[in-house]
């Protein structure tokens, strides 16, 4: 009976991910928003999106504002349910909270309990992941050193500068030693040193075989750190592939590819 059940689960997993070892699998995802005004129809934010991100990849998710990036991330993180289609993290449907056991998430802006100290915040999130106490303390020390906040560990987050808040955000995203890191505009609001630190951390995670999925408007940064990218516009996937292949195909840099795909025309050319 158990064997039959596990066999059926395996076949289900391979149906979800025919190529195997997908960390993120998005199939025909649609996200629709109900119209707010009288007689206003629903708005389709994401339309039939298919994406597959394998283990160890650094994947850049690009698009102009309102393209559908945030809606896609919201579905992956369980903040919103898909209207149609499915999304899986490590083969587990994102509707199940356990799908988020192996991920770390860094939001674009700092959304943390400001009345807690840096170490209390990390301890709180460690408790959620059921990390043993001694291991929690070891990880808190290591992460606060990594983000260079060890000296202010007992200071409340409300007294942190914006850059410090972003760094404590990065530490909380890494508290469970995640296999997948989802970063929403990770370098927005950071000074050049902070940006460099984030890039170093992404590179280090990549070297450890972790997967990084991030959205960004910093195309130069994307070009530097990403293995693959996808550009989404008006809810539809317009292009996806290796950065090098795309640059070779379009004979130009990523910024120009992006502008071409989103239909931007400079005033002088019109």
């Amino acid at each position, binding site marked *: 009976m158990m064997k039959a059940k596990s066999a059926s689960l395996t076949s289900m997993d391979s149906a979800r991910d025919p190529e195997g070892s997908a960390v993120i699998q998005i199939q025909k995802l649609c996200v629709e928003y109900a119209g707010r005004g009288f007689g206003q129809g629903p708005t389709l934010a994401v339309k039939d999106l298919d994406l597959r991100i394998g283990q160890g990849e650094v994947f850049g998710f690009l698009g102009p504002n309102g393209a559908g990036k945030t809606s896609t991330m919201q579905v992956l993180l369980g*903040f919103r349910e898909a209207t149609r289609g499915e999304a899986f993290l490590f083969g587990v449907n994102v509707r199940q909270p356990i799908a988020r056991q192996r991920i770390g*998430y860094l939001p674009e802006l700092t959304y943390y309990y400001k009345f807690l100290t840096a170490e209390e915040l990390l301890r709180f999130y460690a*408790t959620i992941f059921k990390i043993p106490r001694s291991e929690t303390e070891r990880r808190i020390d290591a992460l606060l050193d990594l983000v260079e906040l060890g000296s202010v560990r007992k200071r409340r987050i409300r007294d942190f500068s914006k850059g410090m808040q972003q760094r404590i955000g990065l530490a909380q995203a890494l508290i469970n030693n995640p296999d997948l890191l989802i970063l929403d505009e990770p370098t927005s609001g950071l000074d050049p040193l902070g940006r460099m630190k984030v890039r170093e951390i992404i590179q280090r995670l990549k070297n450890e075989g972790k997967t990084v999925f991030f959205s960004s408007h910093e195309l130069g940064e994307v070009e530097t750190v990403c293995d693959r990218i996808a550009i989404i516009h008006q809810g539809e996937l317009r292009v996806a592939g290796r950065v090098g292949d795309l640059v070779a195909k379009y004979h130009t840099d990523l910024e120009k590819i992006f502008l071409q795909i989103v239909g931007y025309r400079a005033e002088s050319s019109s």
Partner: protein
Amino acid sequence: MNTISALAGVVIKELYRRKDFYVLFVLTALITVLMGMMRFFNDAKIIGYVKEICLMLVSISALVIAITTAARQIPAERENRTIFPLLAKPVTRGQVLVGKFLGSWLATGIALVVFYLFFGILSGSHENRWPVLILLEAFWLQWMMLSVVIALVVFGSVTFSAPSANITICMIVVLGILTVGEHLNQVAMQQNQPVGSIISMIYFLIPHLEWFDIHKLVLFNQPPVPWVYCLLASLYALGYTAVFLFAAWLAFRHKPLTA
């Protein structure tokens, strides 16, 4: 359970780190000082009145702490967007609701213990009587009553968009039940149909919070109520608490959260 207790711990930490929490403690201290001054009148009746005022203020303060603490939990999580990093972890929305409820209830319980300690010590030192058992029962029943109130407020916090609307509506509902709840069946009998049936139905549906109030027994130095009564009242409170939390979960489980 780890997740729920961690969430509850954050609620308690927030409460004791907020300045407004201490304002109520200062008020309690002022009340007790006022009560201490009554010694000069040497009138047993005046002491009784002051005790009644004190107990009423303790009830109001506890109710205010319970409602305001519970009402801001979910809306503050959404407004400050702390709910996003939280729900990006393996946490269910049900756990968030139960954690917030438990934190608010425990925090209110801590405040209530302090209030009753002040009241007990000062009234005991004036009357040279130490009715620990009846005070313990009064505390317990009031705390159980507040569990129903907090669960109702948590339900309101996922239903109404503004916390102020939730606080106002819940305060009116709770004060309405406490003042006229027990008379509704008598009112129903005096009405024509179908109004009478509707009022009767409301009488049987609402949680009768007034059943938890034994302050008159405390005031008139009556013997404690049988523990069976406390047990039944606790079960009654737990039942309504579960109903309101379940309704809150139904309202919150599929609610889209916009970043």
